[in-house]
């Protein structure tokens, strides 16, 4: 069996016409990466700010006003004055506010008398993601207020010198955009491949292709190359935007990152091919591609939700997902400046899963032909 490039090229050319002709594929393959980079780049902010705070002030003294003022002058809170404690709670029910501050009367008197005074805070626990940051802001504000009102500023035993490494300003974009490679490449390689190859099976045109002199391998290569190119194109696009528009540092080795990209791309192309051979129906192939590729690449790859936070079972379960390993390579290469030595394990696993998926896909493909 000889591999003839011209045949593969002809099939690839046909596939490219297919993509160009179909507006949906075109939008998906070019529009979606652009859309995602822009949305994730401009919209995502994990640092919670402008938390709407209902305030009920029963004291109405200079001290209580200065307390409220400290809240509103911090960047974190937007004050919404209400008329009763019940109303404060009501605004939490109706999602108007996320937190409520209730100052009882006698606040200033107690403080001036040198006694400890309690201020009540109600937090909306239904939005878990804001509670933790609010709690941390509150400690800071508590200290500021005590200093401003009664000049309470005890000496600290320990001076903390915190250094946030790799992302000193805790910029959300630096965290999210390197992870986008994984999500975008999953869509372009896995989803599109699974779909288009399944379509050939469903239409019966795959049988037709197979009856031509073209070898199975040539058909596979011809079908996959255009999607590989699309995937690589999106990688280059995201890289350029991340560097030029969002100014994210790339501290690692470009060639290590490139190898990682290619391995990941091949793994997912092979997985898409395997899905399409196993299901042979676009409908089912799509669902499988979403369940085994798209959702895990967003939810189980460590993109937003850290793998360390998952139960132990998932620490091992996610190991079979190429997306998880490529995430380590992408973040490591961008932010940590990881070298080949640091990344040998993810690269090795990607290479292994690449080989396995390719092996199964071609084996299944051949076996199906012989029946």
């Amino acid at each position: 069996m000889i591999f003839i490039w011209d045949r593969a090229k002809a099939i690839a050319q046909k596939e490219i016409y297919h993509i160009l002709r179909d507006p949906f594929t075109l939008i998906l393959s070019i529009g979606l990466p652009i859309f995602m980079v822009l949305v994730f780049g401009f919209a995502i902010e994990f640092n919670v700010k402008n938390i709407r705070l209902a305030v009920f002030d029963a004291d109405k003294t200079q001290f209580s006003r200065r307390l409220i003022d400290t809240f509103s002058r911090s960047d974190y809170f937007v004050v919404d004055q209400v008329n009763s404690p019940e109303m404060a709670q009501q605004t939490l029910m109706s999602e108007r506010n996320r937190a409520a501050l209730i100052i009882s009367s006698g606040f200033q008197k107690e403080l001036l008398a040198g006694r400890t005074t309690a201020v009540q805070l109600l937090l909306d626990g239904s939005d878990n993601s804001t509670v933790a940051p609010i709690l941390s802001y509150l400690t800071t504000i508590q200290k500021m207020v005590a200093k401003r009102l009664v000049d309470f500023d005890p000496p600290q035993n320990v001076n903390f010198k915190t250094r946030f490494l790799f992302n000193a300003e805790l910029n959300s974009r630096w965290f999210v955009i390197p992870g986008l490679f994984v999500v975008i490449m999953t869509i372009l390689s896995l989803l599109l491949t699974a779909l288009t190859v399944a379509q050939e099976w469903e239409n019966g045109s795959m049988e037709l292709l197979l009856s031509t002199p073209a070898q199975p391998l040539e058909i596979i290569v011809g079908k996959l190359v255009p999607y590989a190119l699309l995937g690589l194109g999106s990688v280059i696009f995201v890289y350029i935007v991340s560097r030029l528009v969002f100014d994210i540092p790339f501290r690692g080795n470009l060639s290590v990152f490139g190898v990682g990209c290619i391995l990941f791309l091949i793994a997912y192309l092979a997985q898409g091919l395997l899905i399409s051979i196993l299901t042979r129906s676009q409908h089912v192939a799509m669902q499988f591609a979403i369940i085994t590729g798209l959702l895990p690449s967003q939810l189980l790859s460590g993109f937003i939700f850290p793998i360390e936070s998952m139960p132990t079972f998932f620490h091992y379960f996610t190991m079979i997902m190429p997306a998880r390993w490529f995430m380590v390579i992408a973040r490591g290469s961008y932010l940590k400046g990881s070298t080949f030595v640091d990344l040998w394990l993810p690269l090795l696993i990607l290479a292994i899963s690449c080989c396995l998926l390719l092996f199964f896909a071609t084996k299944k493909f051949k076996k199906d032909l012989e029946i």
Partner: protein
Amino acid sequence: MMAVSLLRGFFRKEFMQAVRDSHMKFILFLSPVIQLFLFGVAISTDVKNVRLWVKTYSQDYVLQHVYDRSTNSNNWFVPATTTKNRDIEPFELLSGGKIDVAVVPPPGGLTQAIGRGNADLQLLIDATNVIQAQSVELYLKNIITSVSGQDLKITPPENPIALTIRVLFNPTLQTTYFMIPGVMCMLMCVVSVILTNISITREKERGTFEMLISAPVSATTVILGKTVPYVIIAMCDVPLIFLAAVILFGIPVQGSLLILFVASLAFVCSCVAIGTLISTFAKNQQQAMLGGVLFLFPAVMFSGLMFPLENMPLVMKWIAYLDPLSHFLSLLRNIMLKGGENNFIVLHVGVLILMAIFFVYVSFKRFKTTLE
């Protein structure tokens, strides 16, 4: 009467088609429950299993206590599986990805330094994950302050302004309470949009849709006959998903089931309407699916499941208002966790119904133009 029996015929056909296919049965009934379970268990932004490394000196019992307390008390920190050799450069451990946090006291150890009165303690935190880094810093500061105070018998004066903090609706801060409604609405949306969209396009592709049109039924009946069954099929999934959420994760349902049902119905209607609209653009199943993904992807992103909507710029917030998922997710959280607030429910259910009507109207128009 005629219309009702016609619709019943449509429904029987669609339902049989859906359950005849074993793949479809799986996708419709088993896969949402499995996914709810998997994602519900797996995803959270809680801080857990952060690998902590402390540079220890032999006499430094304060820092040793800090290390023991933080690695034993809960599952925030785990000991870094690396050598305790103190000559090792912590920065290298961090950049090599072997540890996540390093605590470096001044030479001689923290205990001595506090005694001398100049205890500069370095916290080196891997901030690749920005969500985690801040929480880790706060937690470490608190535990170090309290342990060093206890060990060295330094009682810091009490802050005269005490904060009494009460967390409402989810006092134990269970992450699942927050995440599960998000996963639920994502799954419901995927099932209803994809199902409708694909089934209609399949008919179009196979030419059976043309046959329907040539049958003596009005365009309205065809549209209703093709959409109502999917609303019903998708609504069959709703109790399944809710039961799974309540039984598997113990999510409370504070509000009334009736309101929950109405809200789900409004949401499913709007999703089916969107699925129908996508199918009017698609020429074949492949396009239909791509169209489905093109909708689902941004819809999930703007739903508030992955990141809070409140911090987004105004333009992005407006996009989120156009997303049925964002309305349904806030409805679910409000009804399930808070018991539901009337005005809020009326507003968002109203928006969902308006969306459903709008999308059905547009797809009706588009169908009519293709038919004529």
